[in-house]
């Protein structure tokens, strides 16, 4: 088993509003095997993203365990390991695609995509460049945009840059938070094609999609909130 979420709860305590409590998600449990795609379904505000962010540790879980079988450290609990270990895992094993691109000023699209590879120090810059170019081409990003700054890109282009950045280091576990929300049909199909490929290579995927219909056929499991 790749990932085991047990009894996960997240409560936000808002001190600025006099200690108001907001429930993100409550007692969530599920398993994901290697090469499996889990689709999370539920109305908006039901805590779908919260679950993904807890797994990625952008949120600190309030309660529960997230057991992950990592290549690097063996079995770890993502809810409690050190920040440094999370950073290592994010670099080499766990990818996350959000709805929005976190734009870094004055860095061209291609550099944003290949940065995770460079940080791993496992590959020459020339090779990393080649892989980034291939990926962007597959995602239908026009060549002339490779050296442009994504701050001015359209929503759909930014989203595809984001996907490329997450896929370039071949993550073992991929978390998708509405990665196709601003893509047209053709590009959505391309992205889904890519996801199928990496799934066949053994990557586990946990995803939240705004239109379930398009991804339903290739989901192995569905978790409804």
């Amino acid at each position, binding site marked *: 088993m790749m990932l085991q979420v047990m009894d996960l709860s997240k409560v936000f305590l808002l001190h600025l509003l006099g200690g108001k409590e907001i429930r993100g998600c409550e007692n969530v449990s599920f398993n994901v095997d290697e090469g499996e795609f889990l689709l999370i379904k539920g109305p908006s505000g039901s805590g779908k993203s919260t679950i993904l962010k807890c797994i990625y540790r952008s949120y*600190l879980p309030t309660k529960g365990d997230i057991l992950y079988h990592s290549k690097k450290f063996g079995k770890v609990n993502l809810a409690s390991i050190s920040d440094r270990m999370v*950073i290592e895992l994010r670099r080499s094993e766990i990818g996350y695609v959000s709805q929005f691109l976190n734009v870094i000023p004055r860095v061209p699209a291609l550099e944003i995509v290949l940065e995770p590879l*460079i940080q791993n120090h496992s590959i020459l810059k020339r090779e990393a460049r080649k892989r980034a170019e291939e990926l962007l081409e597959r995602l239908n990003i026009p060549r002339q945009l490779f050296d442009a700054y994504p701050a001015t890109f359209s929503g759909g282009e930014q989203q595809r840059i984001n996907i490329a950045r997450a896929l370039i280091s071949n993550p073992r576990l991929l978390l998708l938070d509405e990665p196709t929300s601003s893509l047209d049909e053709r590009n959505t199909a391309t992205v889904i094609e890519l996801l199928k490929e990496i799934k066949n290579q053994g990557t586990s995927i946990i995803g939240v999609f705004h239109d379930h219909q398009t991804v339903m056929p290739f989901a192995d499991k569905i978790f409804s909130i």
Partner: protein
Amino acid sequence: MEPLLRVENLTVFFGKECNHCLKTTGPKMETNRCRACGTIVACQDVSFDLFEGESLGIVGESGSGKSTLINVLHFKTPAKGSMFIRSEFLPSSLKAFLSNHRDGYWSKNLLSISPYHKKRLREAIMGIVYQQPSLGLRMEVSAGGNIIERLLDAGWRHVGLMRTKASELLNKTEVPPERMDEPPRVFSGGMQQRVQIAKALVHTPLLLLLDEVTTGLDLSVQARVLDLIRNLKNEFGFSMLVVSHDLNVVKILCERTIVMRYGRIVEAGLTDQVFADPIHPYTQLLVASRL
């Protein structure tokens, strides 16, 4: 995974200390001035690890002890507590003096070594960039001269070689080499900052300390300096300590962030976690006030 640098329980008092200092200051008391004797407790029990090639952000309002912390690490402000570096990262000429002979893994407590060794260690492994270029540069000496000064300190004597090295560094930090004979006084703010960065990089530091480096620069210049720092970090692989009151700077540069208030660490975590899911009331206020 073992860190490169380990800092434990740093405590800094400005003034004569008394028994009440620690009890009457801190985030809970909302002051860092001792009620009994007026001493400022600039840092109390600040501990953190810094890993190889990692950038750690330190945020907080003015007076929270951020700059004091940087000055302690740069051996400028004396402090109680301890600071260790892994022996294998000590420069070979200092290994015999500074490694801890009992376990050999960590160095001696760097806060209690002799001033001479502090200076040599600082020269060998650290670089610092301040908010005001006038603190890091001699404004009346040429830009090249500022860099050559550090080379001279390290024992270089060949003028031609030193000039070549200086122009290489200025080139890397995007200062036109033909201006290396002009004093920084006549440069723009952004360019002064880039000369400062070049000066900090002279000996390819292991640890780069950045104290509010982009504060006061206009937006496009700010983006250029940040971008430069990111590229240099990818190229040289040094660790960084980034002090800033601007959360966006830390968000762009740092993987982990420490939040300080009244000299104490109130929260520490992954940068995206601190910003997306702040736990401490003060951090929540800080994130909510972000532009």
